């Protein structure tokens, strides 16, 4: 055993991306071995003598529990605990003693590991009687913490008839009337049976209280963190499709402040960041538009104008009960999810006791020495004899952060200093009313408001490298100040009915997403210098420059003298994007029997009406005043004295507020560029309507250990849009367009339960991805003089995909999982941006210009392998048993065929943009009593972010490993303290062009921390 452990540790020391898989497999072998050793003793091997006289059955159970490691479990309703027992002491082992007790008490006792299951002997006989139909409805809860347990398996013992508890721990199971024995299992908890008396044609209400499995958990203190893992893994294990679940409690395990960052820990998920904070989610290496984002099963619109996907940094994690990432969709899910479908599930009231959850955190952002803070408050309660449930949740987050960044554009060097304030307010509520056991209605509302105030100060050094008589050595100084607000609101009103032969649920919902930028101002100034040179080669990570023969570190440098910069132009404007979804849907499920197997036939329909529009105001003002206007006259604001660790010296840039005061006082000195304004506003604004009609049929059949789910979905989409074509920045032509398309999407899922803790899964599914509105609307902007333009592509087809997934999962009683699988996706008509020469465009007189247009590629395929391993290493000796590991790794390769960039008659193979070859996480934790400490590393492999004119111009986001640490101290079951330390190694965001040492962007965020308390009453 020890040798095996050494091998495991040795492997870990040699850890590389490619050996992650090996480590996981190694640990699986260890686990199997330890699992066998950890099995409880046979009761006949347990030496015990017991002499009692006229003791109650309950007392005898207590004595045995005190003298052995075994625990009795029983239903007090079915077992007469007052029965008197007498034992004369001649029995020599526990098995014989239990036989004697069973005979005297007329019960049956069954050993399950260290659990002794006590059943009434009458049960079996009663259960065998033919019975009319009935049902059991109930909730599975953790007896210790009184929290609900989603994903529990509830089976009618000895049959294939079973179900799983939903996200609220609730279940509904049709059973014969009479006395029915239910078997409930949950990872990390003792398997448990309970006999329920079901009325004829009625419903029996039960609350199934589960006790944590001390044997498997080796006396680990159960904290919210562990609860989170249990809930997530149980939901994952019992799911019909391949999915990963992140429970809200589990989010606290990692230092992830928003939903996007929480999702990066999921196997085969990586994220795109903005200013160091996770924003967009990429599942299985596919770009964000290939993954749909839903709240409570309904897609939320995107507040952004040009895309469909949702920025998940706008959603606080505090208001969710769990996040589900479905990697293979079922027919009752929206079909536009090639990468996957992310479902954010909000909370509901659980008990009649007032439940209050609150948290408060404060933190420090090192980049600018500013603070961050976060608070949340949730109150929930059920009223009117559990019929009415009300949950109110609020959370607020505010951070003042920034970044230091340099970028390269051809021969120009740009220094960017960001300072920003972000706030995130989340309000949500769920009101549900259960009329009776069979009918309930609910109303959910959600309001998220994310604001991002950003000040960006730039220096652009543009040397005249060719010594052209038409150019100068210019330094441009720009300050941008803008406020962006993203507001997502949704209302869902629905009902669920469990009728005698069918289940019916339906819902109407309204959701809107707004991106409002009330002001966006950029002030530009330009200075000219006699000499300038930039050295990108000597130190590619930090280029150096010389201006007027002085090194840039000198304070005497001319570029720091603001009086040499003349005002160039000021851009002021605002934008407003609004996306509204109105949805209605219904689902009908009909349970049926096929021989001894239980099945469910389900069908439903859905209509979603979407309206999206984007308006922009952009005013560019030039200076016409007679007096010189130079930067020193409107400079101000913060100066970063330690920009990029002091490698570059900066001076105060333009102060927008000061400039605006001057501008307002002297409007006659500034002239509006009307032509540019009209061209920009017309080219970018649009309105669009998209109606989606969908229907599906599916069936699920459980045949012994095999579950088969198959069916199909049909979706029809009809799109209308209005926009403008702008030719040469002057001629504006209104355009209208429409398109429609349909998809028939067959789906098949198979799950085979090898044993209680092992699943084999396979799925073959069809799905698709809609084009972004900005790509498909016929808006066109052609600038003949500059010889370039962009054209929407109304003929753009959605991307279709056939997906094959195979996965094996092994769950551990100590709360863990080892899973591994492969996936393959075949994409048709994938979309990419193409640049080409053309004289065919509106307003053309035959001039050839460079057009950029989204095009459909020929085909693309992805082949990937993913492995995930997480376990509390409770089998290790001594203090080592507090260790836990969480690791996952995904290897993906893709190739896509596009028209060759060098020869238009040929095709060329490229990697899919956005697809990272390697993605992984490694997290090591340690639990010591109420103390938990965890160090996590998140690895995102490099990926192509933009396809260039040729391969040497392709832009790559460089691979990145972020190290985080978190510690939790469970002060009491109701109160936790935690502290987090993020981006410990100050990992930059880097982009290179063509070759790895040709950096074109390096952005640093430094580290930040948070610490606070979480209270659960």
């Amino acid at each position, binding site marked *: 055993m020890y040798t095996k452990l050494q091998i495991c540790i040795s492997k870990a020391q040699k850890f590389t991306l490619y050996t992650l898989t090996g480590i996981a497999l190694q640990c699986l072998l260890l686990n199997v071995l330890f699992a066998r050793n950890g099995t409880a003793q046979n009761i006949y091997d347990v030496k015990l003598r017991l002499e009692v006289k006229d003791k109650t059955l309950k007392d005898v159970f207590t004595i045995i529990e005190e003298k052995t490691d075994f625990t009795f479990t029983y239903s007090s309703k079915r077992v007469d605990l007052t029965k008197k027992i007498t034992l004369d002491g001649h029995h020599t082992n526990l098995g014989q003693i239990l036989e004697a007790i069973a005979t005297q008490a007329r019960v049956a006792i069954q050993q399950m590991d260290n659990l002794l299951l006590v059943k009434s002997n009458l049960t079996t006989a009663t259960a065998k009687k033919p019975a009319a139909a009935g049902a059991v409805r109930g909730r599975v809860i953790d007896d210790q913490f009184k929290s609900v347990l989603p994903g529990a398996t509830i089976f009618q013992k000895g049959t294939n008839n079973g179900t799983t508890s939903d996200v609220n721990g609730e279940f509904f199971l049709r059973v014969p009337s009479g006395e029915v024995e239910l078997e409930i299992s949950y990872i990390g908890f003792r398997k448990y049976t309970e006999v329920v008396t079901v009325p004829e044609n009625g419903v029996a209400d039960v609350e199934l209280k589960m006790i944590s499995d001390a044997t498997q958990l080796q006396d680990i203190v159960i904290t919210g963190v562990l609860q989170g893992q249990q809930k997530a893994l149980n939901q994952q294990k019992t799911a019909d499709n391949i999915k990963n679940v992140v429970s809200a409690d589990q989010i606290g395990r990692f230092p992830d402040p928003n939903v996007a960052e929480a999702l990066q820990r999921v196997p085969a998920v990586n994220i795109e960041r903005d200013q160091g904070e996770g924003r967009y989610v990429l599942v299985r290496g596919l770009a964000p538009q290939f993954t749909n984002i839903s709240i409570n099963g309904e897609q939320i619109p995107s507040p952004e104008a040009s895309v469909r996907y949702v920025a998940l940094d706008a959603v606080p994690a505090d208001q969710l009960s769990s996040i589900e990432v479905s990697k293979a969709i079922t027919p009752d899910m929206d079909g536009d999810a090639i990468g996957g479908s992310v479902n954010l599930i909000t909370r509901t009231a659980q008990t009649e006791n*007032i439940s*209050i959850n609150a948290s408060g955190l404060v933190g420090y952002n090192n980049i600018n020495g500013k603070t961050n803070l976060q*608070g949340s*408050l949730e*109150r929930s309660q059920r009223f009117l004899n559990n019929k009415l449930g009300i949950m*109110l949740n*609020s959370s*607020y987050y505010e951070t003042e952060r920034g970044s230091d960044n340099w970028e390269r554009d051809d021969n120009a060097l740009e220094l960017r200093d960001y300072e920003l*304030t972000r*706030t995130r*307010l989340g*309000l949500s509520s769920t009101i549900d009313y259960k009329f009776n056991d069979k009918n309930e209605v609910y109303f959910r509302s959600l309001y998220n408001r994310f*604001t991002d*105030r950003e000040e960006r100060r730039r220096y652009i050094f543009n040397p005249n490298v*060719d010594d*052209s*008589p*038409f150019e100068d050595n210019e330094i441009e100084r720009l300050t941008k*100040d803008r*406020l962006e*607000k993203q507001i997502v609101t949704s209302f869902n009103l629905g009902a669920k009915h469990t009728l005698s032969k069918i289940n019916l649920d339906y819902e109407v919902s309204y959701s809107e997403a707004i991106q409002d930028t*009330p*002001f966006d*101002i950029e002030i530009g100034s330009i200075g000219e210098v006699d000499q300038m040179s930039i050295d990108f080669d000597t130190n590619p990570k930090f280029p150096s420059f010389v201006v007027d023969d002085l090194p840039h570190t000198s304070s005497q440098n001319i570029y720091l003298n603001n009086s040499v910069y003349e005002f160039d132009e000021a851009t*002021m404007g*605002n934008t407003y994007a609004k996306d509204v979804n109105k949805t209605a849907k219904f689902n009908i499920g009909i349970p049926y029997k096929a021989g001894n197997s239980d099945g469910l036939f389900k069908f439903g329909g859905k209509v979603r009406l979407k309206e999206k529009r984007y308006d922009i*105001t952009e*005013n560019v*003002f030039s200076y*016409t*005043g*007679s007096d010189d206007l130079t930067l020193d006259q409107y400079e101000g604001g913060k100066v970063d004295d330690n920009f990029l660790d002091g490698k570059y010296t900066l001076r105060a840039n333009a102060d*927008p*507020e000061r400039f*605006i005061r001057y*501008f*307002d006082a002297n*409007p*006659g*000195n*500034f*002239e*509006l*560029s*009307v*032509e540019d*304004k*009209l061209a920009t506003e017309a080219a970018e604004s649009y309105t669009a309507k998209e109606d989606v009609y969908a229907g599906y049929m599916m069936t699920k059949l459980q045949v012994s250990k095999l579950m088969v789910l198959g069916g199909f979905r049909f979706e029809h989409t009809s799109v209308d849009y209005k926009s403008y074509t702008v030719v040469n920045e002057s001629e504006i032509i209104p355009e209208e367009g429409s398109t429609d398309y349909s998809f028939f999407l067959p789906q098949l899922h198979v799950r085979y339960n090898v044993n209680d803790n092992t699943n084999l899964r396979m799925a073959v599914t069809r799905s698709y991805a809609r084009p972004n509105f900005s790509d498909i609307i016929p808006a066109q902007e052609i600038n*003949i*003089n500059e*010889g370039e333009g962009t054209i929407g592509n109304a003929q753009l087809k959605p991307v279709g995909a056939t997906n094959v997934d195979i996965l094996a999962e092994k769950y551990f009683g100590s709360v863990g999982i080892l899973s591994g699988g492969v996936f393959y996706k075949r994409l048709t008509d994938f979309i990419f941006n193409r640049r080409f020469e053309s*004289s065919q465009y509106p307003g053309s*007189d*035959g*001039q*050839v*210009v460079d057009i950029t247009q989204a095009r459909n590629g020929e085909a693309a395929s992805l082949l990937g392998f993913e492995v995930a391993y997480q376990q509390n290493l409770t089998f290790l000796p001594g203090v080592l048993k507090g260790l836990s590991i969480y690791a996952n790794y995904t290897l993906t390769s893709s190739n896509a065929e596009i028209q060759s960039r060098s020869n238009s008659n040929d095709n060329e193979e490229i990697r899919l943009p956005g697809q990272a070859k390697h993605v992984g996480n490694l997290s090591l934790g340690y639990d010591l009593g109420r103390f938990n400490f965890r160090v996590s590393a998140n690895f995102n492999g490099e990926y192509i972010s933009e396809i260039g004119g040729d391969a040497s111009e392709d832009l790559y986001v460089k691979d990145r490993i972020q190290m985080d640490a978190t510690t939790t101290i469970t002060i009491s079951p109701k109160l936790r303290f935690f502290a987090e330390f993020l981006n410990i190694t100050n990992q930059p965001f880097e982009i290179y062009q063509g070759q790895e040492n040709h950096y074109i962007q390096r952005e640093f965020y430094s580290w930040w921390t948070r610490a606070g308390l979480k209270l659960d009453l």
Partner: protein
Amino acid sequence: MKKHLYTLATALILTAFVSCADNSLDEKPNDNNFPLQLLLDAEEGADLADAEDYSIEVKFADYLPDAALPESSITIDYTITDLEEDMADHVTIDKIIYEVEVDDCTYEREIPFTASNDGLSGTITLSRDEDLKFVPTSFEVILTLPGEDETKGSFKFELSNLKSSERVILGSPNVFEYEVLDNDAAGEWELEFNNEEEFEAFKSIFGPLNPELQGINFEDITGKVKAEFEFEEMKFEIELAEEEEITTCENGESETETENKVIEIEAEYEAEDGELSLEGSHVIVNDEGVEEDELDFIIDSEYEINEAEETITIHFLKVVDEDHFKEGEELFSNGDGVSFTFTKD
């Protein structure tokens, strides 16, 4: 009681969050309130010494297509100041005019103004034009000048104190500085090609800058080339043999004239100490004859004036543009220069 406290605390916190005000930047100029600007077309100008008058254009700055133009009267004060040398006692407003197009015919109309006794200050009143339905969007202030061959001096024309009941302000520039054009190249000059060789030499310089010129032969031109040097701007006009009819209608009278077509090459120029530098832009035409780019060009040359014969000889040395400026890649280069002599027109 405890329950109510919880409720109250929740409500208070929610209210605090929702009422969080954004720290907005108060940006006053926007589409709803940015005013119309009345301003001068240029900050400075000049004409030949013998010019008898000079026209300064006053106009509204570019405005949005749906902007409401003023219908009520606008008054604006003017002053003529800093009169130097010969300009003193000679410069006054002669008249202020604007043009209106009605039924494809252009009508010139006058704008009233009051002037002080010395004519150096006064008030211009811009009123609603019945045909336009609003005030004129541009007008010309015509100033009288001394008109003598040896006139020297300068002056400033300034607008101020704009009054309007509508959203109109005085924009910038509002001061115009006039001076006598003092470079010796100023004026109109004419060149006559005597043979095809001379024309081909001219084409070798300017052909790369003008696809139309590059495509014609000696037979296609009359042989006349005009060089017109004004204030900071100049142009060459190559007269073609082909004629065209031009119809104009002014003040109700229509007139049709037959004129030779011309090819124009325009540039800004600097002429000092015998060095002449021309800068402009030209279009690039691909093999199929369609325009695909527009590039800036620079022409380096030298010039000599022969006052006795009233000629200017220009030695063209080098023509470069943004894509062809490195040594050996120039559009035209000749160390000795190719010379053409123009005669005063």
